[in-house]
């Protein structure tokens, strides 16, 4: 299940719905990403995310399908915000369900690496100072994502 939404969402409600759908799984991992109050450059006022439909969804769908196949998941869900968010707001939620915990952990980690590095989003940070900056990819993120290229086809 993949959702790209300009509206706020509640990670706990999402986990509850996912758990109902993951009937029969032994392990459920969830990841929630929240807007941080401090970036590397100082206090953050808001974060604005642009997506390009359907390219963004297509990319996420490909990562989702790869995770389902690579780790034999019984279910997976991805929710990603677009639009303007303030510190503390959920940006992204990923849940994975599997028979065993190792698969659920690795698949959630893989999906998050994809979403944080390769997913088609543009991100503008507005600082408390009033300055706005479009965030460029970080070298650290590419390193995380590259981990999977070595271990999974």
């Amino acid at each position, binding site marked *: 299940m993949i959702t790209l939404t300009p509206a706020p969402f509640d990670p706990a409600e999402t986990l509850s719905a996912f758990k109902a759908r993951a009937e029969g799984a032994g392990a459920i991992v969830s990841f929630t*990403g929240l807007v941080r109050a401090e970036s590397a450059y100082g206090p953050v006022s808001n974060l604005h*995310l*642009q997506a*390009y439909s*359907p*390219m963004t969804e*297509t990319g996420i769908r490909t990562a989702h399908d790869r995770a389902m196949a690579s780790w034999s998941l019984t279910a997976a869900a991805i929710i*990603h*915000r677009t639009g303007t968010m303030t510190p503390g707001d959920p*940006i*992204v939620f990923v849940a994975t369900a599997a028979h065993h915990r190792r698969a659920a952990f690795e698949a959630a980690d893989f999906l998050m690496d*994809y*979403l*944080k*590095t*390769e*997913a*088609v*989003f*543009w*991100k*503008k940070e507005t600082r408390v100072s009033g300055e*706005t900056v*479009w*965030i*460029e*990819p*970080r070298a650290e*993120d590419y390193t995380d994502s590259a981990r999977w290229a070595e271990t999974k086809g």
Partner: protein
Amino acid sequence: MSRPPRILYFGKLTDVTGHTKETEQLPDTITDTNALRQWADSLHGNTGAFLEATIRIAIDSEIVPEPSPLSGATEIAFMPPVGGG
């Protein structure tokens, strides 16, 4: 005659143009990605922002090698580097 394509701007180019969708119609004389970049740049202050190699162009949701012809395109997007969510 086919309709002229929609032109979309993302990321930092949104700030350069002031909008995510071009309000000007693409002239018939602009037939490939090189000419498109020059046209967009001159339309938006000649800053060179549209000429940067890190900006990729997608035609109908597919990033294309350049130069590529624009014929038959329904939607053309200028895409700065994507950094994830």
